[in-house]
């Protein structure tokens, strides 16, 4: 088993008729993902790439039995789209949209958890279980089926690491982009606990960056609860304070959230920290061999 998405994943695309939505729908379909429905209000009855479009997620669910939604609507409409998916009983909601306001996301996250759905993102590249299904915008070709779980706050940096893993013959069980914003539906800890329980996942790569305390909490969680080998990478060592580095999340305020602080937290939890994307695979390989030795004793 992979986590979050697998070959039983049935996807409804919210915003399927938009530029982004239709482009990535084609990409997901090509990868083999079961796209079963799309939603754009007022466009019910149309088809995009052969996929039926509905006015509402509720109707789309009724007609297609979708269990996962991926959201490509513009930022002003994204909170409504997430709430709609949660209210319609969608189990997993992956929000690609970036630029959603923080106070909106606070309410949205609270509502989603009341409804019992799981939200990935916003500002996430998506989730992929290589060889099975891809729900998001990442390039499928760089991934390889395997047993490394990858969880990350960023997009292209993850691709870099994933490519490095694949080229080193370290395939992935699932790669999860939790999103670069300050308020996100699922944290590192949420995803780490899924990887820990997942029988297919044998090792974990965590890609963090400056800002917030998510990495520190992940380090504490790994020390307490994770038995599988973990390698961490933290971007932003030389990012200056009080400057915003692209992501809403990537700002350091006060003493908290520096890369050094995060790296120290990982090291204190005896977690290996890679110095650059290029040596993640190498460190992970060493960890796995050590782990193998330990098991052979």
């Amino acid at each position: 088993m992979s986590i979050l998405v697998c070959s039983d994943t049935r996807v409804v695309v919210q915003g399927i008729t938009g530029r982004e939505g239709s482009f990535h729908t084609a990409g997901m379909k090509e990868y083999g993902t079961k796209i079963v429905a799309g939603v754009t209000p007022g466009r019910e009855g149309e088809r995009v790439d052969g996929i039926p479009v509905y006015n509402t997620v509720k109707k789309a669910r009724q007609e297609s039995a979708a269990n996962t939604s991926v959201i490509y609507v513009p930022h002003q409409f994204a909170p409504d789209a997430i709430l709609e998916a949660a209210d319609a009983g969608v189990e997993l909601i992956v929000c690609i949209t970036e630029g959603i306001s923080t106070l909106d996301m606070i309410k949205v996250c609270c509502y989603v958890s009341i409804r019992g759905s799981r939200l990935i993102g916003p500002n996430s590249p998506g989730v992929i279980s290589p060889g099975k299904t891809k729900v998001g915008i990442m390039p499928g070709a760089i991934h390889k089926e395997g047993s490394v779980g990858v969880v990350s706050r960023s997009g292209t940096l993850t691709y870099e690491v994933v490519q490095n893993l694949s080229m080193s013959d370290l395939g992935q069980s699932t790669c999860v982009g939790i999103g670069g914003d300050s308020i996100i539906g699922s944290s590192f800890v949420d995803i780490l606990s899924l990887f820990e329980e997942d029988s297919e996942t044998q090792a974990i790569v965590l890609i963090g960056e400056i800002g917030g305390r998510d990495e520190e909490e992940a380090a504490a969680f790994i020390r307490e609860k994770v038995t599988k080998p973990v390698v961490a990478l933290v971007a932003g060592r030389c990012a200056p304070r009080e400057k915003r580095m692209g992501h809403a999340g990537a700002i350091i305020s006060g003493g908290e959230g520096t890369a050094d602080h995060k790296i120290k937290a990982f090291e204190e939890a005896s977690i290996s920290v890679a110095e650059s994307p290029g040596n993640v695979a190498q460190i992970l390989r060493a960890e796995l061999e050590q782990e193998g030795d330990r098991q052979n004793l």
Partner: protein
Amino acid sequence: MRIYEYQAHEVFSSHGIPTPQMELTRTARGAEEIAKRFARPVAVKAQVLVGGRGRAGAVKIAQSPDETHEAASRILSLHVKGERVREVLVQEALQIKEEYYLGITVDRSHRCPVVMASPSGGVEIEEVAKLTPQRIFKKLIHPLVGFQNYQARLLAFSLSRNKERATGIADILTSLFRIFEELDCSLAEINPLVITEDEKLCALDAKIVIDDNALYRHPELSSLGNIEAEDPLEVKARQRGLSYVRLDGEIGCIVNGAGLAMATMDLVKRYGSEPANFLDIGGGASKDRVSSALDIVLSDRKVKAILVNIFGGITRCDVVADGLKEAITRMKLNLPLVIRLSGTNEDEGRARLAHTKAILAGSMDEAARIAVREAKK
């Protein structure tokens, strides 16, 4: 987006938070006039968007109009963390009995606003948090019911058991939270909130940072000051849809994606140099956007070598290559340009750059190493 202190004071005042008498000026002469009118000691405070102005000597107390002139004149000649001081705020100086801290921000872990109060005001709250965390009182705010009076009272009574004073503090907290919500703040802070000798509450300093993602809801704020807008290059980059932050190093970086950009900068440092900037060209960049990016990086005189690191997902390497090639030709580039292209259409991209003077690298590690080496030549 951070707004200036004087603007934050205006917001406070319009929401009923007591603020001192104050006026803004661009000249030492003007500051002197204001001090004369106030006819009492004043504080002269640089209006900048970066923190740490106190340590930079950009806040001074003046006992007389003459002293005010002198202080303003000195402050108006300063730079604070690279930001030139253009305006000073002249504020009545109060007789202070106590200094409190009040602040509201977003608690990322709990996914909700957090209201903080401390009896240790007037110093940096991060210091208080480190040295005496028990002196910061916090209340998490549930999004269902928002900030309630009982929470305001709970915090206020933690600062003072005096009923009148606590009631005043609770009212200010309530107003501050209203500002936080109405303006979509990521931070709203009063440090210090003072009790004067005549037992009055007054917000001496005012700090408001607005959530960039919510700016579309506040067209009225777009005219206000902005940290990124300070640097002309940053303004230019923003206009062209690029996320650019100027830094102090010598390697100009052009990358797609914020995380990858930071990782690239980290590598530059690791190989012994410093990045001249953060620059994220975003996803699916067009030829023009790429060309603009090179343009902006080259406008920074400190830059000695350029490092382009592209991982093509939605972004197509051939399109990036076209943009780079166009800019190279147009601008008669005479700096080392190291390019790493990977992912979607990487072969086509590399092919297009084959006969330019650009150095093509196989990995981001290699690219960073070469760029640093070239810059040192």
